[in-house]
């Protein structure tokens, strides 16, 4: 009797498990369909504005899934830019049609999305939004010779091929940019670093920061690492920073560890200037985080929604009106990406009837000749290897919100 009960129980559990699995599965399908519809409707509204001979710009990014916030921001930022350009007469007299596809931050889905866009007749690609899909799509786009400009793919390999450019700084270049910012703004001369040596993003920034620090007259007084397996106790690293007399602690790490470091520094009574890169973006969104711990923390981010310049103000107001939320740096990256394409397209005087490969060849050269005043930097220029050249911008957290410096 007991044995049969047990069998019954395990059967019941197996059924419950199967049921929960199918439930997950069906949930996912409906999500994808919804995203598909969204993209499709985006396309139709774009198509309505187009006539004969219009540029077809594709976009790829996660608009569902755990990184949806990035993809949606880029999609909307780019959409806003395209509407402005279209209202203003388009690129070289031709309107832009825009089609944004979801990749759920998945490399395979990103390549599928890319193929969908290619069938649609895409001439230029704004995307992809996240690094891993961007690398996967890059292999395809370079084969097809289609111009690709990623707004926010920051991994080094996102601009590996000749047809690839990016709007954001690459991961390691954030290190150089941070050192320049600290040096030029005389934030500190004695700097301590705490970084994650087991993470390519963190150690990449760290290495570049070290080499650039020497040029900026910054003295690295303490350089301590941690690893993914040992990332909760930072008492030693912080104490070494404190003992070495560092005025600024550079944190090229992600926000979840930074939240712990800030809490532990406060426990020790250590209050240096903390400075981080875009990995810290998200610090204020940690659930239940005491934002007073992050007071005065500075981070290198290309965009602050409360910056006072006219371009940012106009962008933020329109974005809020249209989507009901404050744009983040990804939206700004998407917006700048479209304007960069416009500038390069006008420089090369391309026309809408050219095929994608010819457009790519023309843009590859003209991208390196333009200078764009965007939301994420003034006088942005691009080098032949696809990297942007712009002055780094930083924000400071004051009263729990980002404040432009």
């Amino acid at each position, binding site marked *: 009797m007991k044995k049969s009960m047990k069998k019954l*129980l395990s059967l019941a559990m197996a059924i419950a498990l199967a049921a929960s699995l199918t439930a997950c599965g069906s949930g996912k399908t409906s999500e994808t369909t919804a995203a598909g519809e969204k993209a499709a409707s985006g396309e139709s509204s774009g198509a309505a504005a187009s006539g004969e001979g219009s540029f077809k710009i594709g976009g790829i990014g996660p608009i569902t899934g*755990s990184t949806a916030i990035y993809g949606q921001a880029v999609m909307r930022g780019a959409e806003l830019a395209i509407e402005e350009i279209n209202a203003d007469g388009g690129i070289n007299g031709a309107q832009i049609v825009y089609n944004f596809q979801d990749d759920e931050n998945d490399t395979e889905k990103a390549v599928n999305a890319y193929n969908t866009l290619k069938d649609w007749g895409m001439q230029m690609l704004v995307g992809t939004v996240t690094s891993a899909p961007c690398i996967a799509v890059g292999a395809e786009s370079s084969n097809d010779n289609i111009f690709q400009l990623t707004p926010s793919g920051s991994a080094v390999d996102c601009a590996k091929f000749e047809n690839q450019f990016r709007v954001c700084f690459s991961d390691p270049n954030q290190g150089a940019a941070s050192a320049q910012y600290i040096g030029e703004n005389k934030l500190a001369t004695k700097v301590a670093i705490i970084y994650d040596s087991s993470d390519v993003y963190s150690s990449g920034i760290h290495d570049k920061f070290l080499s650039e620090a020497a040029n900026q007259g910054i003295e690295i007084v303490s350089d301590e690492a941690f690893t993914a397996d*040992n990332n909760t106790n930072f008492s*030693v690293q912080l*104490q070494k920073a404190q003992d070495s007399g560092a005025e600024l602690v550079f944190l090229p790490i992600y926000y*979840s560890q930074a939240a712990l470091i800030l809490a532990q520094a406060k426990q020790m*009574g250590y209050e240096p200037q903390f400075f981080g890169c875009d990995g810290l973006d998200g610090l204020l969104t*940690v659930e*239940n985080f005491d934002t007073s711990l992050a007071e005065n923390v500075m981070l290198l981010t290309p965009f602050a929604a409360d910056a006072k310049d006219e371009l940012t103000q106009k962008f933020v107001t329109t974005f809020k009106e249209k989507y009901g939320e404050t744009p983040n740096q990804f939206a700004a990256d998407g917006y700048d990406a479209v304007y960069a394409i416009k500038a390069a397209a006008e420089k090369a005087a391309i026309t809408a009837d050219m095929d994608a490969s010819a457009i790519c060849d023309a843009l590859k050269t003209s991208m390196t000749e333009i200078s764009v005043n965007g939301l994420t930097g003034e006088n942005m220029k691009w080098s032949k290897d696809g990297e942007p050249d712009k002055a780094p911008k930083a924000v400071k957290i004051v009263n729990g919100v980002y404040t432009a410096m």
Partner: protein
Amino acid sequence: MMSFISYFINGLSLGSVYAIIALGYTMVYGIAKMLNFAHGDVIMIGGYVVFTVVSTMGLGPVAGILLAVILCTVLGVVIEGVAYRPLRMASPLAVLITAIGVSYLLQNIALLVFGSNPKSFTSVVTVPALKLLQGKLIISGETIVTIISCIIIMIGLTMFIKKTRAGQAMLAVSEDKGAAQLMGINVDGTIALTFAIGSALAAVAGALLCSAYPTLTPYTGSMPGIKAFVAAVFGGIGSIPGAFIGGLLLGVIENLSKAYISSQLSDAIVFGVLIVVLLVKPTGILGKKINEKV
């Protein structure tokens, strides 16, 4: 010298967290003779329960810990009944693999329910930090509470095992399951009780771990769990005072090697020390030598 003392104290506070987790490990191993690798994840669940009660529902920390203790106890008994009991006669390896499976199951359930975003844990400890030498040395309230809890739990467990019938039954089961059953001891019940106590300890450990290192993710319990297992082996697995000493030593060694050797190699050094200790004393610092009966 000053900084050495400070590193040492920080090591103690890290070690006290290892110790409290190791107590649960060693307790279950000592009685049931199985490594419950899901222990770290029960700790994580305990952390989430406290977080939900205190930060989301707005009740006090005491209510949070009580509820976490109750839920974790139930969880421990359920895990034991569903995952480990059917394998009582199977090889220890099968049970070990099941335990790893349960560990992943708990992590993924937490991932599904609470999401992957880290949550910032509000400390349940209200004891103020102890400041010595004009504030140059700071012993945090969490450290004090953790060490005191460890000592109370250690004494409580020892008394329980020595003085109560249920405790005696546990000892008997750990010596010889078959003989214990013949003597009229309910072996399944005793092992379930062991898991209940172990998991209740895990809930307390979860609250203290998350208070000391206040971020909570579905993976919060896994690395401290492994370190605490090492601490338990270090002190002599199955020995309750051994877990306490092993935990403290591990924390101090880890912090000092971070400070004076390399912050990246500290884990390697910790495990290296473990190997040396086990070579010299295979049963750990306080481990009993077991004579094989012929």
